[in-house]
């Protein structure tokens, strides 16, 4: 096949159309997004996005507090700062048919899915009423009912598993799309590329979402990644990439719509890089000494996703009082979930042996 690009030195107008340019598919989605970056919500939609983001933030702050009190144990990875990613993407999904899978930083995705904060918080405190009956913990939560498939503790595993969910959508021809979230750290795992290859080869309906929060635990992206523009990482497999401001929920939403349209049309996978930031350490036991307080403060002041939505709401004529009302409601909801999580009983000792296997042999 002749190379589609013309000689850059000729100075002529590009002589190729998108159809002739074999690289076009790889950047066409990015171009579609660049042409129209932000979703235009009505007031009610935007208030709803705001409320979900505030719920995640308040929930995570409370989880951090309960961890500090010893009520939550083990590893606990908070989503504070990244709220716009899960909220924006989930808002574009069709909850009746699309499936979602993520890694261990999963509380925010579950809340964005509308899963009851009480059962999430009760799982964090290891109680019978928790969504995994207290046997999973922070990193291992699932809601098959909501097509939320976890909640996985092994870095990168959710990418192959997500490709499997996409395989099931295609096999059943149910029109669903799988969304697999992973971080900039997981993006260096080998199985991610094995999955890219098969997903592209078989045109699986999947959106790979890299939440680039800048740090793989304590390793800054530039110290761990030869190609720091993660949206380009699918190019070798002919997977189109998109680079998205993950701190702007409306851009995230718009990007999700562009990607979903492409994937649902049967074109195979899309890779999205969402540039975001986590305010807290990697997990609760990480004091985050690898970055300066000024760096964190700077993001909080200039890029905070919730403040961003507040400005958009003000532009739509929403006043402070309406936001205070939401904040109050969310606080009450989070306080209620914390009380529930603290006061629910631990699992019965007999639960030790349940659900090891489904069947008895």
């Amino acid at each position: 096949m002749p190379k589609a690009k013309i000689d850059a030195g000729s100075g002529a107008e590009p002589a190729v159309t998108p159809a002739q340019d074999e690289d076009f598919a790889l950047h066409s989605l990015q171009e579609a997004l660049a042409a129209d970056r932000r979703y235009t919500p009505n007031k009610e939609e935007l208030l709803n996005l705001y409320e979900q983001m505030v719920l995640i933030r308040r929930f995570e702050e409370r989880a951090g507090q309960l961890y500090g009190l010893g009520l939550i144990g083990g590893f606990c990875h908070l989503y504070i700062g990244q709220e716009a990613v899960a909220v924006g993407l989930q808002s574009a999904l069709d909850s009746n048919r699309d499936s979602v899978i993520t890694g261990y930083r999963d509380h925010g995705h579950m809340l964005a899915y509308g899963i009851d904060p009480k059962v999430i918080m009760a799982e964090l405190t290891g109680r019978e009423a928790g969504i995994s009956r207290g046997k999973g913990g922070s990193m291992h939560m699932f809601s098959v009912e909501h097509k939320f498939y976890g909640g996985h503790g092994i870095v990168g595993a959710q990418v192959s598993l997500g490709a499997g969910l996409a395989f099931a959508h295609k096999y059943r021809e149910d029109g669903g799309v799988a969304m697999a979230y992973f971080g900039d750290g997981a993006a260096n795992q080998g199985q991610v590329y094995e999955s890219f290859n098969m997903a592209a080869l078989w045109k699986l309906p999947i959106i790979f979402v890299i939440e680039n929060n800048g740090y793989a635990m304590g390793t800054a992206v530039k110290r761990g990644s030869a190609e720091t523009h993660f949206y380009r990482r699918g190019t070798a497999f002919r997977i189109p990439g998109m680079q998205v401001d993950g701190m702007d929920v409306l851009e995230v939403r718009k990007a999700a719509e562009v990607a979903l349209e492409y994937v649902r049309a049967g074109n195979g996978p899309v890779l999205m890089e969402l540039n975001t930031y986590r305010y807290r350490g990697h997990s609760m036991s990480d004091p985050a000494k690898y970055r300066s307080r000024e760096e964190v403060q700077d993001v909080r002041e200039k890029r905070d996703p919730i403040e961003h939505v507040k400005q958009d709401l003000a532009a739509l004529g929403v006043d402070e009082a309406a936001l205070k009302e939401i904040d109050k409601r969310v606080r009450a909801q989070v306080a209620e979930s914390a009380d529930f999580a603290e006061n629910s009983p631990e699992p019965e000792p007999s639960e030790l042996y349940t659900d090891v296997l489904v069947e008895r042999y």
Partner: protein
Amino acid sequence: MAIELKMPALSPTMEEGKLARWLVKEGDEVKSGDILAEIETDKATMEFEAVDEGTIGKILVAEGTEGVKVGTVIAVLAGEGEDASAVSASAPKAEAAPAADAAPAAARPEAPAPVAKKDPEVPHGTNMKISTVREALRDAMTEEMRRDDRVFVMGEEVAEYQGAYKVTQGLLEEFGAQRVIDTPITEYGFAGIGTGAAMGGLRPVIEFMTFNFAMQAIDHIINSAAKTNYMSGGQMRCPIVFRGPNGAAARVGAQHSQNYGPWYANVPGLVVIAPYDASDAKGLLKAAIRSDDPVVFLENELVYGRSFELPELDDHVLPIGKARIMREGKDVTIVSYSIGVGLALEAAEQLAGEGIDAEVIDLRTLRPLDKETVLASLAKTNRMVVAEEGFPVCSIASEIIAICMEDGFDNLDAPVVRVCNEDVPLPYAANLEKLALIDTPRIVEAVRKVCYR
């Protein structure tokens, strides 16, 4: 309502720390996310952030205080509309977090007992056909794929090539490329895709060209497939079969010659099956595909071509978790599985000539292990040898011996002896390979030993 700010823990093990520095003072307005103080332990420093909005009322623990117990009230926050100066705290006290042992020590729960089961009767007059293990496995997959359209087969060379060992011969032709799927050489990836598809409601049969290559994928078999049902409180299942040849083949060297039975049998949440003959291969693979649990199904390349009697039944399904008495005997029990069963039967024939009547048990399922059948046989013969084609250390043989010690000690007239491969990586040279692998004479010798003959 005033909010008490308590000394936080930096880690699950922290009990006390130093309140290094206050970054706010009494009367300051704070909003959530503001850093209030710095806490130090010998290991780390952490910033203590406000969760709630309000005004700092009283600071109860001065900065620089060492040994502040986790949970101690260190300051009080006045909420909206409250007079911060009027807020007083209840006496500072340390609140113990509810520890797991806080509840009265409950009686240790009993593990559920296995269900009683036996092989279905083969009706009198059933035609027995001669089938290779290879054909029996293929027929099992074919029948289950006809029965349930959620079942599909995926692996390297399973479709167009008809299977690296021809176990999937003819499947592509009958079921098409949608259900018989060739993968790139990428075990970790396709094991993950299969596992994800099972989570998503399908019934994958994932073929590894050999189980040696499944080590690249073992994370998904164990961390993703085996643990999900438990971690999700029974909510998310993973009905998948990982199958392929396992154990030593012939002259393929150390990296292609290992029995992974003990590896997988170690993991709760998995079912592990290792059949010997054609009837068990078919009946147990069908059961494995129907199971709602993840199954590791270990075949043996050297046995694929062997022919056995196979009952011609419409639906030949055998119970998982049930050992099979291959040969009844009264003097000694030889326990084995997979290719070792053939050697054990040969040994039993030879021993019969010497006047030793050996019972041979094929475990068939390695997890859950049929202890009852093993112990019942021990109670009858009082002597046991375990024959296993695999490394001796931490093996299935080790497990059988432990079971006999724990639950059958009074029935033992001699120590249980294991006959395994030598404890070395499998060598290539023909003579060395022969020396390394289990064989019939070694089993015969071990039986004589436990019979004091």
